[in-house]
């Protein structure tokens, strides 16, 4: 139920963001000098911002960027974090110590410094943004997965698998990974909003998405600045952002329950 509602909500948002702009009367960059900070009406469905740009099209186009950054960076962080954490937790001993101390060192590096460095070397590209955010957020994921793996490893069913002569790789894939899914999916759905917020912060500093391109995070920031003049420029991006987060959280919860056989009604 939760899963279906959440997935439906996300689908609707994705469709609106992808198809919506086709129906827009204006483009995202045109500044309407006569219509600055206009409240929503029949012409500007979501009003205009203080610079006179149509917010309808800006919100939808920002959504494309935000959703893409959110999903891709989360996938990067899940992929690296899960494999790294699982390996460290399962191998234990000195392998674990070396791997986790490396994570500690990476934690100690200031994130902004890392991003600035990347941007300086490779120029400002959107994919670098995904890589940078994902490459930073996997640290949390790795720690969580490692802890869970250590707990699972101590369980008797893992030892039983070892006792029947199962190989280490198969134990990781067949016994540990399926039991990690619940935690990983819940944490991943929490990561998506985090990524969207980090992206807006970077954009605010001029390191992320560049004007006139925009994202929900950037729009919310702008909207918050101009709340006294054009409160609707905060409302709409914030509404979309909230709905997306609700959608991701319900999908996460739903998937966790679906993957847990003990949550299923007995057949």
């Amino acid at each position, binding site marked *: 139920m939760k899963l279906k509602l959440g997935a439906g909500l996300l689908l609707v948002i994705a469709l609106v963001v992808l198809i919506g702009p086709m129906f827009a009367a204006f483009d995202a960059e045109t500044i309407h000098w006569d219509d600055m900070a206009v409240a929503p009406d029949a012409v500007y469905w979501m009003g205009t911002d203080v610079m006179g740009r149509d917010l309808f099209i800006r919100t939808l186009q920002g959504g494309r960027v935000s959703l893409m950054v959110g999903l891709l960076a989360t996938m990067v962080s899940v992929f690296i974090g899960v494999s790294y954490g699982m390996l460290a937790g399962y191998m234990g001993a000195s392998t674990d110590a070396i791997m986790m101390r490396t994570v500690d060192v990476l934690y100690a590096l200031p994130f902004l410094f890392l991003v600035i460095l990347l941007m300086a070397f490779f120029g400002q590209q959107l994919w670098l943004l995904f890589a940078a955010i994902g490459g930073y957020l996997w640290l949390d994921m790795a720690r969580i997965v490692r802890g869970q793996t250590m707990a699972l490893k101590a*369980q*008797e*069913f893992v*030892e*039983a*698998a*070892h*006792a*029947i*002569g*199962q*190989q280490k790789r198969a134990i990781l894939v*067949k*016994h540990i990974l*399926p*039991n990690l899914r619940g935690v990983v999916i819940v944490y991943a759905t929490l990561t998506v909003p985090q990524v969207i917020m980090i992206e807006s912060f970077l954009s605010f500093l001029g390191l992320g998405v560049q004007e006139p391109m925009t994202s929900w995070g950037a729009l919310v920031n702008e909207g918050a600045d101009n709340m006294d003049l054009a409160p609707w420029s905060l409302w709409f991006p914030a509404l979309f952002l909230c709905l997306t987060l609700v959608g991701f959280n319900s999908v996460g919860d739903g998937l966790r329950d679906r*993957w*847990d*056989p*003990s949550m*299923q*009604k*007995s*057949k």
Partner: protein
Amino acid sequence: MTIQSTQALLSIKDLSVEFTTDAGTVTAVDRLSFAVNPGQTVGLVGESGSGKSVTALSILGLIPQPPGKITAGQIEFNGTDLLSLPERQLRKIRGNDISMVFQEPMTSLNPVFRVGYQIAEVLRLHKKMSKKQALKRTVELMDWVGIPEPQRRARSYPHELSGGQKQRVMIAMAIACEPKLLICDEPTTALDVTIQQQVLELLQRLQREMDMSMLFITHDLAVIADLADEVVVMYRSQKVEQASTENMFRHPQHPYSKGLMACRPQLHDNPRRLLTVADFMAADGQELSPTAEQQAPQVKVDKSSHPVLLEVKQLKTYFPIKSGFFGRIKSHVKAVDDVSFTVKKGETLGLVGESGCGKTTLGRTVLNLQAATAGSVFYDGIDVFAQTPTAMRHLRSRMQIIFQDPYASLNPRMSVGQTIIEPLCIHQPQLNKQQRWEQAAALLQQVGLNPDQLNRYPHEFSGGQRQRIAIARALAVKPEFIVCDESVSALDVSVQAQVLNLLLDLQQQHDLTYIFISHDLSVVNFIADRVGVMNQGKIVELNSAEEIYRNPQNPYTQKLLDAIPKGEPKSI
């Protein structure tokens, strides 16, 4: 049946409790009535799921509502109806007039507070004592329940105490306010047999000195034999029998009670197979009587002439204790310390000892699941520790292990079929999918489960059924040798008997060799041909089962034997 007098301290009349689940409404307690008189101890006996813990929780008003619901009945305590009492007044009674000791002393204490503080908290809450008074009283209480150096121990954290001491602290908390009724929910099930005896003696002494009533919940009749004045037997949510302890042990009436009495292995005169409840009662509740054949006495065959299957030579397993930033090795825990023995083909070697004596580590080291520090293990002439990883995996198909905890030993995300098929995929890759599933179904049948249940997940099974699944998985590789690591310890006595019988049958059918590890001497005596007694990493005595029990040489063995609940009321 006793007449329920009006002066009863606690009287339960027609209590019914229901739980609403996804699958419908489940009746946990069905029209239960009994009474506890002042100064009396009543034992509430039944298997897990029979509704005995739910009864205890209803008395304290601790049934989670919903999903639980008390649909009918009365619980009268000292003349007041507990069920109609508002929560605020109920809280005054809880911990004050009625208190409870739980099963798991490890988790019932809060690990971040000193034990003295936790006891004192009860006193300050209910007796409104000052901090100083409460602390003084706490030390007295701890002394009373037999904790040495109470002054110092009050400042300990729970992890610094042993299991038995923790249970004593729990008891001290429970009696802090001098309750009129103490409810003990399986207080000794998680404890070693020697500590169990000490705790039972403590409870008995406290009851005498404080003149309180006790409601003692257990699945094991033997435990309450010299404790209870009266026994209530519950089966499938209903009371099936109530009698004085003496009568219950001498002339059990209900077939279920008879089965419960018979299923516990004794130290002598055991039948060939243990009688189970099913031998006394058909599935429809009709009474059966066990045939003479079923009651035939156990005869142990001398297997000393059999060829040697397993040889363990000077085995040592040490765990390093590390300290400091770089993990320098400070000293070692000698879990297995210079152990040598042999196991003959077709034989069962029992290993007994208290928790922490190294018996589990020994079993795991023999199977090379735990690296040995020194020594060697030869299985059928093969040096187990000198195998390449591939050769070791092949060898694993010949030696298996069945673990203690049927809840942790099955992967919750794998269906029963997948679990049983996994070893087949490794060791018999030539089989196709259908052959594998057919084999899995046959294995399930062999361990007494319905082959239709292959697609179910572990959580849908009871503890005993899960243990059967774990046995099926171990059998899948067609092993010759199985280490049973406390494989029946987590089960109710009635289920334990069924699993023990299954292990015996399988041994006969497949000519299996067992190492049977347990803390329960009567179980080991029943199943093992020879018994090794372990203490602090060493085997202190190794002899035929009969000799060990008739004529123990080592004082430690003697101590263990004395601690076994005799299963006979004091008056007999």
